[in-house]
């Protein structure tokens, strides 16, 4: 399969606001426009990758991602994941994934109580086999922006030990040339992204679709997305 044959679906909720940016980013890399799928749809055309984009689905009412996680389309996304399909959740998409239990843990209010919008430095961790980390070199650092108010990853210590033992921690915040402390939100053990226990679902707070060109201030998002897409093709 070639990159242009890759079928990518992006789920759109009321309040999603990174859906179009992600569509443009994926199209830039694959020359094929992803399908935008409205949350009221009850089924999903076959897809090689489903992306839950960032934003403020349902105005963050009740809890971030809670209402989106129970939308009609999510049953189809859960089925897709249960068949081993790949799913990527970015920012609010990560919150949606935790709310459905597709990835473990939960994202709570930033420890500093402030919305944080800036570049962070990410370090790839040693993980179980996953298309989202396969193409990146172990220890490779990426600079990608975050923009969130609830990105403080939380799970209890036993669960965190289990995740680390299984290789489900994909990215950690590390010191780099980014302005401000390495960990922007107080996340447990500096966790920025986690994988499901089969490695096929990734949730991450940083926005790769916002680091796609020099005009964005960096291209590490493009590097990360391209490696993931290439791993899904091969």
């Amino acid at each position, binding site marked *: 399969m070639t990159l242009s044959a890759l079928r990518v679906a992006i789920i759109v909720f009321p309040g999603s606001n990174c859906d179009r940016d992600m569509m443009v980013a994926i199209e830039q890399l694959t020359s094929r426009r992803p399908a935008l799928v409205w949350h009221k749809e009850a089924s999903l055309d076959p897809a090689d990758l489903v992306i839950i984009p960032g934003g403020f689905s349902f105005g963050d009412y*009740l*809890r971030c991602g*809670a*209402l989106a996680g*129970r939308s009609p389309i999510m049953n189809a996304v859960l089925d897709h994941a249960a068949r081993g399909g790949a799913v990527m959740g970015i920012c609010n998409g990560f919150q949606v994934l*935790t*709310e459905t239990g597709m990835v473990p*843990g*939960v994202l*709570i*209010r*930033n*420890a*500093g*109580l402030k919305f944080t919008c800036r570049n962070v430095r990410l370090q790839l961790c040693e993980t179980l086999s996953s298309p989202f980390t396969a193409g990146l070199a172990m220890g490779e650092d990426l600079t990608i922006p975050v923009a969130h108010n609830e990105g*403080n990853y*939380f*799970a*209890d210590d036993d669960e965190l030990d289990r995740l680390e033992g299984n290789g489900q921690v994909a990215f950690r915040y590390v010191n780099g040339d980014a302005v401000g402390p390495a960990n922007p939100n*107080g996340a447990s053990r500096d966790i920025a992204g986690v994988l499901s226990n089969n490695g096929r679902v990734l949730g991450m707070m940083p926005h790769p679709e916002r680091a796609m060109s020099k005009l964005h201030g960096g291209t590490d998002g493009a590097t990360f997305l391209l490696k993931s897409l290439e791993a899904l093709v091969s």
Partner: protein
Amino acid sequence: MQAIVNISLKEGVLDPQGRAISHSLNDLGFNEVSDVRVGKQILLEIDETDPARLRQRVARMCETLLSNTVIEDYSIDIPDEE
């Protein structure tokens, strides 16, 4: 019948908002405040006359949507229950 759901953060889960409120209360002279935890209350009006059945349904709602049991506990109060 009415059901009142109280949702609170589990022990051990950081509550940055509660901590900020605690600091503000201390600054205002309420030095006796040593800890604040913020929860939420959800009032539900439900077409149901049997309190036991109501409690069971509301518990399902809490487990399905109203609380995230990874970090939150819930309690259900039914004022009309004898």
